[in-house]
């Protein structure tokens, strides 16, 4: 496959991703709180390993570690599709909903013996949610039934352009520029009963998310052990007002540090773990009073991959994992911040000696609890496809 075809396919995939990301509903009731629900731009293999963002020894496209793609033998494209089914309860609120989207798409272009360029697009914050209420108002001497709806549509996404370099035979480094994009549109509906003779009203407010950030990463690969680290930050995220009735606002995006490691514990078995710290408290002062604030968060994830199975002559790696994640925002000021727990599993199939891979993962997760007011459970299925042009 030529690079031109890779580029064409990537462009189509990006278009799909952006198109469906724009309409993507929320994955949690927490999308209504703070700056929304942070999203993890990882593929189905990483999801099956507990949501492991980095730490694996082999070259792969990643929106976490710019050094991860070093060593890819040919240009490649990776696309992930994801679907969630969520059951949520928050105080007296209960809602079940489903979502689907393309959370991440990436391309990589090795050049020379040591270099690789990467381009990726992934979701960062989900801000899709709505509220509704029934009421009545006095108009023209009559009491009229009304329905009010508030709808927030949008989210923050990140376009990352990066480069990786093999400094030493076992050491890779990388750096990337992050361009934050996206939009947030508030729509406020007031609906009157058909018999009132009053037309419904719709007012809207739009913001565009803008910002630049930087990231860097490294990976060391031993014979049976590898370790990775990545850091990102430096971004000021600006909500640029698109109409005259509102004002723009800046938020300081957190510095995020990820470390991960993996070890081959048997010829066909791999164990991987990772940890993260993200300084979301940087936006605590910037959030409006009454929003509940923000905190620094950590995440621990890990999993096992076993490569001993084969199907019609092809390797079928099987994975199990789990994670504990702290989320930066909370339901309200009187509740505790929300934690997320998940157990994961999945499998993959490798074609053409690694030229193409399909990975499938399933997660069962829980967020919050009594003290957090929010109590959610979810099923998530991810399907990733990676293709190398060799």
């Amino acid at each position, binding site marked *: *496959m030529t690079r031109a*075809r890779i580029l064409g*396919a990537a462009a189509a*995939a990006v278009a*799909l991703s952006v198109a*469906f990301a724009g*309409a*993507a*509903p*929320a994955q*949690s009731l927490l*999308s*209504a709180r*703070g*700056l929304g629900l942070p999203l993890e731009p990882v593929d189905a293999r990483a999801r099956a390993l507990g949501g492991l963002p980095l730490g694996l020894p082999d070259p792969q496209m990643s929106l976490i570690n710019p050094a991860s793609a070093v060593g890819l033998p040919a240009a490649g494209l990776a*696309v992930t*599709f994801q*679907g969630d089914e969520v059951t949520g309860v928050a105080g007296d*609120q209960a*809602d*079940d*909903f*489903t*979502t*689907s*989207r*393309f959370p991440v798409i990436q391309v990589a272009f090795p050049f020379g013996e040591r270099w690789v360029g990467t381009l990726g697009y992934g979701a960062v914050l989900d801000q*899709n*949610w*709505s*509220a509704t*209420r029934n009421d009545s108002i006095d*108009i*023209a001497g009559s009491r009229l039934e009304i329905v*009010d709806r*508030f709808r927030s549509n949008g989210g923050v996404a990140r376009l990352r352009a990066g480069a990786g370099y093999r400094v030493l035979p076992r050491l890779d480094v990388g750096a990337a520029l992050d361009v934050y994009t996206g939009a947030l549109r*508030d729509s*406020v509906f007031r609906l*009157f009963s058909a018999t009132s*003779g*009053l*037309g*419904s*009203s*719709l*007012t809207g407010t739009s*913001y565009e998310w803008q910002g630049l950030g930087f990231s860097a990463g490294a990976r060391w690969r031993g014979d049976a052990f590898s370790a990775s680290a990545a850091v990102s930050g430096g971004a000021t995220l600006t909500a640029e007002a698109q109409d005259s*009735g*509102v004002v723009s*606002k800046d938020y300081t995006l957190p510095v995020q540090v990820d470390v991960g490691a993996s070890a081959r514990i048997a010829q066909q078995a791999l164990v991987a773990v990772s940890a993260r710290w993200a300084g979301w408290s940087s936006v605590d002062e910037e*959030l*409006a009073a*009454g929003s509940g604030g923000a905190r620094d968060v950590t995440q621990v994830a890990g999993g096992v991959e076993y490569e001993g199975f084969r199907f019609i002559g092809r390797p079928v790696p099987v994975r199990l994992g789990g994670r504990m994640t702290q989320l930066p925002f909370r339901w309200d000021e009187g509740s505790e911040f929300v934690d997320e727990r998940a157990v994961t599993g999945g499998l993959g199939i490798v074609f*053409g000696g690694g030229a*193409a891979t*399909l990975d499938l993962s399933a997660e069962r997760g829980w967020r919050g609890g009594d003290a957090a007011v929010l109590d959610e459970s979810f099923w998530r299925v991810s*399907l990733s*496809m990676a*293709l190398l*042009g060799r």
Partner: protein
Amino acid sequence: MRFRFLSGLLAVMALATAACSDEIPTLEGDEQFPPGGISVTREVIIPAGQFFRTLGSFSGYTDAADAPYLVVANRYGGELDAHGLTRFRGFPRTVTYVRNGVSKSDAAFTYLDSRLVLGVDSTASAGRPFTVQVWEAAQRWDAGSATWTNAVDTTGVRTPWVEPGGTRGPLLAQGTYGVNGGDSLVITLPAAVVARLADTLSNGVVLTVAETGARLELSDILLRAAVRPDSAIPDTTIIFTTSSAGQRVTVYTPEQPDAPAGIIAVGGIRSARTLLELDLEQTVPGCAVGQTCPDVDLTTVQLNQVAILLRPTAVPRGFGAPNTVPIALRLVDEPELGRVAPVGQTVLDADANFAGGDSVVVLPVTNLARTLAANDSLPRTFALVSELSGTDAPPTFGVAFFDPDARLRIVYTLPARRPLP
């Protein structure tokens, strides 16, 4: 090959995404709305002096010959007298019937007692019965020009009635419309009367109502003529329906009143219309009730309803409309032409009607207000008319009068904007 595989898988993913039933999580209750996320809806009433000016009322665009209905009245409202004149057409020359499976035609036949069916559209005598009388018309008349005083009033020919209101011959029949009368009144006509009406030289009938103060509007008149062919067995009866369409007219006195100065007149048998000038470019308070703030243009708010409210006023001479008067507002580009100013497109959001018991008439002009607020080069003059789509006939015999103190009701919703979190 791999590229095809990639393309196929991408397509499958896209289809899977499109096929999934995405749902946005929805929270319920006031407390789930962000600050500033709930709309504020207000109502303001603008007095006539700020938006409404009457340029003049005109009538005479139609007359009784254009009306598809008949009105009969006896001193209704103390003044209005109206008689219905009608002739019947379509009586048979031969009668065809089937006897023992064989079709037969017979030019010799006998009329039997028949039924005159009056479609009753509205009455103004609710609560008491009244009597409709059918008289033989004793003088030739012209359906296109007959008036209360003239049987014929065409260019160059004017023939007065011997008896104003239609010269009457003998009383042919009468029927009583009960207190709870339905939508029709059936009067039996003797066979001899039907035979006379079937004569091509017949002048038809004059319909009147006997009781003083009564008024009746008839939507249709049919004569169901019963005949027996002479060659048929004695119990054979064949019914023919004869029509009065195009052969009927209402003659009445006095004439429909013109609107007094300043009064808004709409409709009636003479299709009154009133030219208006409207200024819908208003400003409204830009905050909730109880708060103080500057006014804002209509372009900056969401208009839920803009309506002109008209109060009806009494109509003299018995010309008040007991039934529903449809009202339309039409654009007028050249109001300076007055009575002959051409009227343009309708501008109401929906049909408006005035029924006799209404204390106010609501003319919905939300779309017009939006348009005028956005484009100040559009005409501001309009004609208030009564019309039914697809016909030039006057919708009602009675006319509606409205006070000039119109009000403009604006129901609007202020933009709701939440501050960012």
